[in-house]
């Protein structure tokens, strides 16, 4: 039952935008033809890239996991149809950087043959952890556009009792109607999904928020709730103000609570999931199907037949455009996402990813050229419409002059990039681009800082190791030297003992001999005594000769 009495609040600012939604709600969700070739980017979510499990040439079945998550915040991708892995290489990805990322290319064999599917309709017997694991391996990520792994959000952590689950069907951005059509046509899936999430979070209260410009969706949800006979799910019609579908804005509208600046909704006992995510969880649990397709709105003034279609992940965007009967003559640019937060795509051969909720084709007269920007006149309109109560003008000044510390002082990272400020700017300044520039620049600096801190640790460690090695070498050398010295001394001492004795003995012997000789000489008869006169004369003569010579 819709509680008409549900009290609602307002968030700051916001805009009433022309909806432009009727263009694509005229026909039911169409099925797309199976493309010949699908290009599945390995990294389609926030978090770590998974590890590729298949090789070129492998035959894969529909729903077979192509990657396996490598970290807690990670999600696998699955084969959207059966076929052969033709290539695993870098292909252009739908990203504002226009860079290429690793993709698995599958050539469809047309059989569309499923893997073995296991239904867990008895999910109420499963523990929340098992349920989270199922959701994780089904590769389910937030389908509202952010593509954050759902299993992580289903685990609020110990100490966080979730009081309210909010299913977000606001879909506040103009043109986009994929959630609207999903709720109209598959309200039962959304309700079942909400029940499963409630079970996983052990929550007794669930709100489904839908903007009041979608009466058909609200009616369909109410019918599905009464059919299912659940009493804890309420559908709440909320005023149509952009960006009421933002997580923090919707929480404020429904509960008057504000999520802390650097906190999560779980901190205040709330978890929010998109309606598309709820339906995907229903399919994963009840039919065992991983996330291999999503509903995409193909719309805009540049499209011949705007409509919603169920698209396999990896289908080229051009195939969708073709199915919508192609571009109008005045089509000017292709945007992935809505007119406020979407990114311009540089070509239409890019694959549809899990986060791609809308392909919008604008005509040349619809958008102002960025080069038409004029200087800021400090009118303050941007601050009036900012749904986060920031000061967009201050952010702009500091971002454009690269004062990254100040721009953070003004809470840049609370900016949700909704584009309200740029929309109302009379000078047509592309404000959000400045914020995105500052954010990515600050992240880059943080990465650099981490890297240099890491390098410092490694350098210091190396230095310490080299010093230690040097000390040890010196120590070894010193020890060796000492040992040599000692050895030398010992040897010398040995020598002294053995060499000095004979010397002394020899000296003593020599002395003894001399003394002996002296004594003998003293004893011996002297041949100069008792000489005759002639002999004396001869001796004298000889002496005289010796002297004269």
């Amino acid at each position, binding site marked *: 039952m819709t509680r008409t009495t549900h009290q609602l609040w307002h968030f700051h600012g916001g805009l009433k935008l022309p909806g432009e939604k009727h263009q694509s709600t005229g026909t039911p969700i169409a099925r797309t033809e199976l493309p010949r070739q699908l290009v599945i980017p390995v990294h389609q979510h926030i978090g770590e890239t998974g590890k590729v499990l298949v090789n070129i040439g492998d035959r894969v079945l529909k729903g077979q996991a192509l990657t396996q998550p490598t970290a807690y915040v990670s999600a696998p991708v699955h084969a959207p149809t059966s076929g052969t892995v033709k290539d695993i290489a870098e292909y252009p990805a739908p990203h504002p950087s226009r860079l290429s990322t690793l993709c698995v290319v599958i050539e469809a064999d047309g059989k569309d043959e499923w893997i073995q599917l296991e239904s867990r309709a008895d999910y109420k017997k499963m523990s929340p952890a098992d349920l989270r694991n199922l959701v994780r391996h089904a590769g389910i990520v937030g389908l509202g556009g952010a593509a954050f792994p759902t299993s992580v959000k289903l685990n609020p952590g110990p100490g966080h009792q979730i009081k309210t689950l909010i299913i977000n069907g606001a879909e506040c951005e103009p043109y986009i109607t994929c959630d609207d059509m999903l709720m109209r046509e598959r309200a039962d899936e959304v309700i079942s999904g909400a029940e499963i999430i409630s079970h996983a979070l052990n929550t007794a209260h669930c709100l489904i928020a839908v903007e009041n410009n979608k009466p058909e969706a609200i009616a369909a949800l109410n019918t599905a709730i009464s059919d299912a006979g659940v009493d804890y799910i309420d559908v709440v019609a909320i005023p149509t103000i952009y960006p009421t579908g933002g997580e923090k804005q919707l929480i404020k509208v429904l509960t008057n609570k504000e999520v802390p600046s650097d906190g999560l909704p779980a901190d205040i006992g709330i978890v929010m999931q998109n309606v598309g995510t709820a339906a995907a969880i229903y399919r994963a649990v009840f039919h065992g199907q991983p996330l291999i397709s999503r509903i995409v709105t193909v719309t805009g003034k540049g499209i011949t037949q705007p409509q919603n279609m169920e698209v396999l992940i990896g289908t080229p965007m051009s195939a969708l455009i073709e199915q919508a009967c192609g571009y109008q003559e005045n089509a000017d640019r292709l945007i992935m996402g809505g007119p406020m937060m979407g990114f311009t795509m540089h070509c239409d051969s890019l694959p549809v990813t899990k986060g791609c909720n809308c392909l919008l084709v604008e005509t040349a007269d619809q958008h102002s050229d960025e080069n038409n920007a004029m200087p800021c006149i400090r009118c303050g309109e941007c601050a009036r419409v900012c749904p986060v109560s920031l000061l967009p003008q201050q952010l702009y000044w500091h971002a454009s002059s690269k004062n990254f510390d100040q721009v953070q002082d003004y809470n840049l990272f609370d900016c949700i990039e909704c584009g309200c400020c740029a929309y109302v700017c009379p000078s047509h300044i592309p404000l959000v681009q400045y914020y995105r520039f500052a954010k990515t620049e600050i992240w880059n600096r943080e990465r650099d800082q981490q890297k240099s801190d890491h*390098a410092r640790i490694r350098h210091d460690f190396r230095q310490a190791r080299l010093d230690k090695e040097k000390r040890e070498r010196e120590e070894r050398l010193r020890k060796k030297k000492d040992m040599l010295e000692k050895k030398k001394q010992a040897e010398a001492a040995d020598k002294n003992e053995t060499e000095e004795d004979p010397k002394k003995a020899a000296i003593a012997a020599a002395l003894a001999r001399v003394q002996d000789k002296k004594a003998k000489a003293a004893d011996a008869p002297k041949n100069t005594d008792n000489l005759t006169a002639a002999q004396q004369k001869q001796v004298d003569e000889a002496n005289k000769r010796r002297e004269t010579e």
Partner: protein
Amino acid sequence: MSILIAVVTLSVIAALFGLLLGYASIKFRVEGDPVVEKIDALLPQTQCGQCSFPGCRPYAEAIASGEAPINLCPPGGETTMLALADLLGVEPVALDDEHDTEPTKTVVVIDEQTCIGCTLCIQACPVDAILGAAKQMHTVIADECTGCNLCIPPCPVDCIHITPVKVEPDTWRWPLPEQNFAAPRA
């Protein structure tokens, strides 16, 4: 008499404060130079020596003692120079013309076919980012490489090459919008 009292009182107070200050200067003595730590934290830690000092810390010490200007770090580029100017409260100094204000990040790669396993590059690497052993093939651990290029000169077979670090969508940076304001339309 009253003059004497005043002189004595003041002298006693002066002596007390002197003792207090003397005690404080010993008790709260700061080990090392905290400015060097702060400067070192801002430097990119490539240890490349392009500043003519043998590593980032010696350069930080030289800046702290006023011996070196703040614009000698090519890997840090303008960002590091501005951060240093901000920290030290000095005027920013322009970088040399030959160095980019925003240097591209690079790492080195060893051509493993040509490597002879001489270990000279391993000894040159300041962050132990090269793996190998004597007469065995060497390789660079790209995640640890700081791009200092110190391993290139010692290589006897010139098998070490500089490659730019690949920009992934996750590390890609939005460009700053151009501010060429159009003339107001009449």
